[in-house]
């Protein structure tokens, strides 16, 4: 049976993990490669690096981190942040990423998803959809853009269908309203998109408890759950997350970690 994936996400800025990773005694809590190795040992099912201040000047730093992580961690690695061209996708994959996240660039250039999928295959193209609720009843969400920091008038569910039709192999669905709050995923958003598309969906944005992870899969119909701070600061371990999912009768991969 296919297992639910538990994916820690490392936000990276200027080559450092934002706020650090403190669930184990790392000599350097801000070293992304050391953090990746710790999660590898802890039994994470995949890893995600998000370069939150992607710029051309520090691209080399990100590629170096990706390469050194891939050399040491034999697990799937997804990398995003500042991906604007097919060339960006190709370079990240060549550096050691297995999947690349496309976000803002696809808002204005949907063709990027299609061109990337044609070049490297759908399995390596993940589209990150930041959704923000614009109406409570009936529930409706729009795609949120970091450029201008606002909703951009595109229905999030329709956008999800469109990028999948263009070749996205997986969707990372992030609630902008919940991100960083610890109040739980926006389950209705996750489910609305997961039920609308044929590709796997990763729930993201707002996980604060183990119950939130369970709800993301059981109620949100996600195939995987992504979280950052609840793991980084040691509130919960990867093993505890898997135990909670398992207790809810969801299949997980149990590891020694």
């Amino acid at each position, binding site marked *: *049976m*296919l*297992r*639910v*994936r538990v994916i820690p996400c490392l936000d990276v800025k200027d080559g450092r993990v934002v706020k650090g990773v403190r669930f184990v005694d790392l000599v350097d809590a801000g070293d992304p490669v050391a953090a990746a190795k710790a999660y*590898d040992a802890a039994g994470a*099912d995949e890893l995600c690096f998000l370069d939150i201040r992607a710029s051309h000047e520090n691209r080399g730093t990100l590629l170096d981190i990706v*390469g050194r992580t*891939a*050399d040491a961690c*034999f*697990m*799937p690695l997804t990398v995003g942040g500042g991906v604007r061209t097919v060339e960006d996708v190709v370079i990240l*994959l*060549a*550096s*050691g990423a*297995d999947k690349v996240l496309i976000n803002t660039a696809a808002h204005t250039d949907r063709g990027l998803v299609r061109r990337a999928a044609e070049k*490297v*295959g*759908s*399995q*390596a193209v993940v589209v990150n959809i930041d959704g923000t609720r614009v109406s409570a009843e009936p529930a409706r969400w729009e795609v949120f853009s970091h450029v201008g920091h606002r909703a951009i008038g595109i229905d999030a569910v329709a956008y999800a269908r469109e990028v999948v039709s263009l070749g996205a*192999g*997986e969707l990372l669905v992030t609630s902008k309203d919940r991100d960083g709050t610890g109040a739980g995923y926006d389950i209705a958003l996750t489910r609305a998109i997961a039920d609308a598309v*044929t*590709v*796997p969906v990763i729930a993201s944005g707002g996980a604060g408890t183990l119950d939130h992870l369970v709800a993301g899969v059981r109620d949100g119909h996600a*195939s*995987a759950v992504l979280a950052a701070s609840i793991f980084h600061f040691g509130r919960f371990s990867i093993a505890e997350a898997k135990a909670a999912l398992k207790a809810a009768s969801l299949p997980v*991969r149990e*590891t020694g970690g």
Partner: protein
Amino acid sequence: MTESVAIVDYGSGNLRSAAKAFERAASDRGLNERVLVTADPDAVLRADRVVLPGVGAFADCMRGLLAVKGMRAALDEAVRKRGRPFLGICVGMQLMAERGVEFGTHKGLGWIEGEVRAIEPINGLKVPHMGWNDVTIRAGEKLFDGLPTGTPMYFVHSYNFYPARQDDVAASADYGGAVTAALRRGNMAGTQFHPEKSQAAGLRLIGNFLDWRP
């Protein structure tokens, strides 16, 4: 004597990850195996073992492989005639098929009878088949030595190899029906999952391949 393994570079697959995983698996075993990523058919012919990676679409990969002058002949010679241990990974396994069906029919290497077809996203089945899934392993498969049946491996694919002969199936997974997880006939083997991305279990399989004397 130092043995060598050639990972065929034809523009497809995460070659860096694959090479590092083979190096790690070799050192874990105490083997002094030389790992070579190469697009040179002569280097493939000289190698003791051959690995064919591959991601993306069947037709693209086959086209890419044929575009490397002399590579197909070198593979046929090394694997079919000289019987060198061979491991295809993901689309690299699928290329052993007679044909792939995807926007028309495309010829594969034709080493193992059968065809590669899409997994249909019916009854809510998500495609690609992405993530860790347990593999049911046929007893006595050397490549799976030390790996109990039911071990999860990392998959990411939208197409499945449907072999004509069940005898060729070394391991299978369940995803809306049987998925071919691994094939083996004589010295030819392939995995649909990615051993180079399957952490300790994957490294173990790679180590087994490096030790394999079919």
